[in-house]
């Protein structure tokens, strides 16, 4: 019998195999990417009006708690009602078109619909008050919000990211006074870290990685 596979065919087969492998790989990757979070990290989502944390926090120096009033007491940091915005903006930039939705909502009583930037799955129970009261500064999760003209997600919010802090929180804690300070210094030395842990009484942090700490 003659050769079943001449040299050319063999070559073709080899190339074909490689191509097939590459193709499946790309397909898998793109699929994984497609099922990722809706608001990509670093990309500010569309909002009803172009609110700038940079302006309010850095330029005006407004405290986080002025608008997010629940952050120390509740799981939900709280979003300012239109009336809160209007305490200033009934006077400032009244006629700027950008503020039309705000005034409209105040007039009609129809609520503003903000797109959630840091969206956790429904089976995750994050509690702002718990973190704030234990000295986790805003910036640890929200990044330098004071440098964001438009608000975007600063962290991956994946479980491994949560765990990275829950496993050894020491390096992420600041003094109670500094929690809302965007320039707060994180403890550098081992000693400082232990000091913070001791201060917030999380020396035994077994329960920090309990499933039940975040999932119910």
């Amino acid at each position, binding site marked *: *019998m003659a050769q079943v*596979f*001449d040299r050319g065919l063999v070559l073709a087969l080899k190339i074909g195999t490689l191509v097939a492998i590459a193709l499946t790989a790309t397909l898998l990757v793109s699929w994984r990417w497609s099922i990722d979070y809706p608001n990509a990290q670093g990309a500010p989502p569309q909002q009803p009006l172009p609110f700038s944390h940079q302006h309010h926090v850095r330029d005006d120096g407004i405290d986080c708690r002025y608008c997010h009033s629940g952050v120390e007491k509740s799981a939900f940091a709280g979003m300012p009602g239109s009336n809160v915005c209007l305490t200033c903006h009934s006077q400032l930039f009244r006629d700027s078109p950008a503020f039309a939705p705000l005034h409209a909502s105040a007039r009609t009583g129809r609520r503003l619909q903000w797109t959630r930037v840091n969206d956790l799955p429904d089976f995750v129970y994050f509690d702002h008050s718990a973190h704030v009261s234990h000295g986790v500064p805003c910036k640890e999760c929200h990044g330098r919000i004071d440098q964001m003209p438009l608000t975007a997600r600063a962290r991956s919010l994946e479980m491994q990211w949560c765990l990275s802090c829950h496993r050894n929180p020491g390096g992420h804690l600041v003094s109670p006074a500094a929690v809302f300070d965007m320039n707060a210094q994180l403890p550098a030395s081992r000693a400082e870290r232990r000091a913070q842990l001791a201060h917030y009484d999380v020396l035994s942090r077994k329960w920090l990685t309990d*499933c039940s700490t975040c999932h119910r």
Partner: protein
Amino acid sequence: MASYGMLAEFASADELLEAARRTRAAGYRRIEAYSPFPVHGLVEALGPHRDRIPLLTLIGGILGGAGGYFMQWYSAVISFPINVGGRPAHSWPSFIPVTFELAVLGAALFAVGGMLVLNGLPTLYHPLFNVEAFELASRNRFYLCVRCSDARYDAVEVERHLESLDPLLVQEVPA
């Protein structure tokens, strides 16, 4: 070089075995023998042969087993220790089955992989397949081939030698 070697065809395993012995005795070293089924003693007849498959298999087994146990220990004790039903993180008795299975898997993969690699398979294209008659090598014919890469290879010499083994036919294999 022009050709792959000189091929002789035989009707039975015993003839092939005999031919192999005599060819080697004649001083040829690069000899190959082809048969439709494993013929006992043929390899030895062709010259010294060391079987590395068992060693490879052992290595595979050890890698699989050790790797398996390490994986379990690392994930259950180091990576994310969780209190499961009050059992200790390192509950070694429960780690045994997976360790065993992975040892077997490793060994088997190494055995087969080793066999293929050492045999240089797959080799879809091979000069021998250019020989019309060679298709019978997988049916009922037995072949002896003296490679032209052999130090003492000389087409005429080899042909005469092979003829002397009264084969069914002798033929040069083009490269």
